């Protein structure tokens, strides 16, 4: 059985692509066969975060237009054999992404016995975002602890329950997990950032994972290595916890407290 998971948010720049890359990697590290698809037509970026930008020969739209087979377009990850990337097209023509086309690609991935397909949604609620969520079996809604992001994610939760195939079938829509990213414990402690409890209360959903704001996310994207590969990164470890929780493992939330600088660090810096 193939499970289609959309990573979405409404608001831009909150960490969807970062999350998609680490989620897909984390699932593949557990030996599942995973495809991660960039739905951001015209603004391809997942390839850079996955570090395969120079290996893109064909893209999603080429497959939909039958200019290439899906097999030709899927890029195998350099590090994990069971992980594949389907790049977005650079075309300006957003109409190129069609519902039938998306459905055909997803059906073929089902036939090829992929365990998971991760759909990295573009920002907004237009065509790309709509099609990224339409066929999903599950959603990961990425939220930053910040007013506009929380409002937008509530909007997205509404769309997931109505404007999706599950929603249209009337079976309650796409079940959603909330993931809070770019969380600053210091700012929350100072009262300048929404807390997890605040977000849970407003959205009426419990939070599956919290990814702290961390410099390692930047260095990972510089290198084109999803941050979950970095065992020294709090963000990477938090993504690893999140993947474990998807499989029902009980992992307490961590990195939520203000880090205290050790004496050694205070003396030597760092």
């Amino acid at each position, binding site marked *: 059985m193939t499970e289609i998971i959309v990573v979405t948010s409404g608001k831009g720049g909150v960490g969807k692509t970062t999350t998609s890359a680490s989620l897909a990697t984390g699932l593949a590290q557990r030996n599942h066969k995973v495809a991660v698809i960039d739905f951001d037509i015209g603004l391809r970026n997942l390839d850079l975060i996955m570090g395969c930008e120079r290996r893109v020969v064909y893209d999603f739209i080429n497959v939909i237009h039958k200019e290439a087979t899906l097999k030709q377009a899927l890029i195998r990850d350099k590090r994990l054999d069971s992980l594949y990337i389907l790049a977005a097209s650079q075309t300006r023509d957003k109409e190129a992404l069609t519902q039938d086309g998306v459905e055909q690609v997803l059906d073929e991935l089902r036939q090829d016995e992929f365990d998971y397909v991760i759909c990295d949604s573009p920002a907004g609620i237009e065509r790309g975002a709509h099609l990224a969520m339409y066929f999903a079996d599950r959603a990961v809604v990425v939220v930053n602890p910040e007013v506009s992001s929380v409002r937008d994610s509530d909007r997205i939760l509404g769309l997931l329950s109505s404007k999706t195939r599950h929603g249209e079938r009337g079976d309650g829509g796409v079940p959603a997990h909330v993931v809070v990213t770019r969380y600053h414990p210091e700012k929350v402690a100072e009262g300048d950032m929404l807390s997890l409890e605040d977000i849970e209360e407003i959205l009426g959903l419990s939070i599956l994972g919290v990814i702290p704001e961390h410099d390692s996310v930047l260095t990972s994207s510089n290198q084109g290595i999803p941050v979950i590969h970095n065992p020294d990164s709090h963000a990477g470890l938090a993504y690893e916890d999140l993947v474990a929780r998807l499989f029902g493992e009980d992992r307490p939330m961590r990195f939520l407290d203000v880090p205290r600088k050790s004496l*050694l660090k205070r003396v030597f810096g760092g």
Partner: protein
Amino acid sequence: MGLLDFLRAKPRNSASVAKDRLRIIVAQERNGRGGPDYLPLLRSELLTVIMKYTKVDIEAVHIELDHEGGQDVLELSVTLPEHSPPAR
């Protein structure tokens, strides 16, 4: 920079890795812009053919459109591996 950072000798800072990656990909993408519409597909098909006959790493293939004296020149360079056996 603290002493610890210094001791934790990083092989190469990630910003310079980012810069190198970007330089290549941005040049490749700029190069295609304003070129003929068939260029992206031509590039894809050329790469497919090259991979069919050789085992080169796709990152060792450079396809560029050059403008020389009012003419467009399509340049293709492939760095073959030392003993490059046929793919099949």
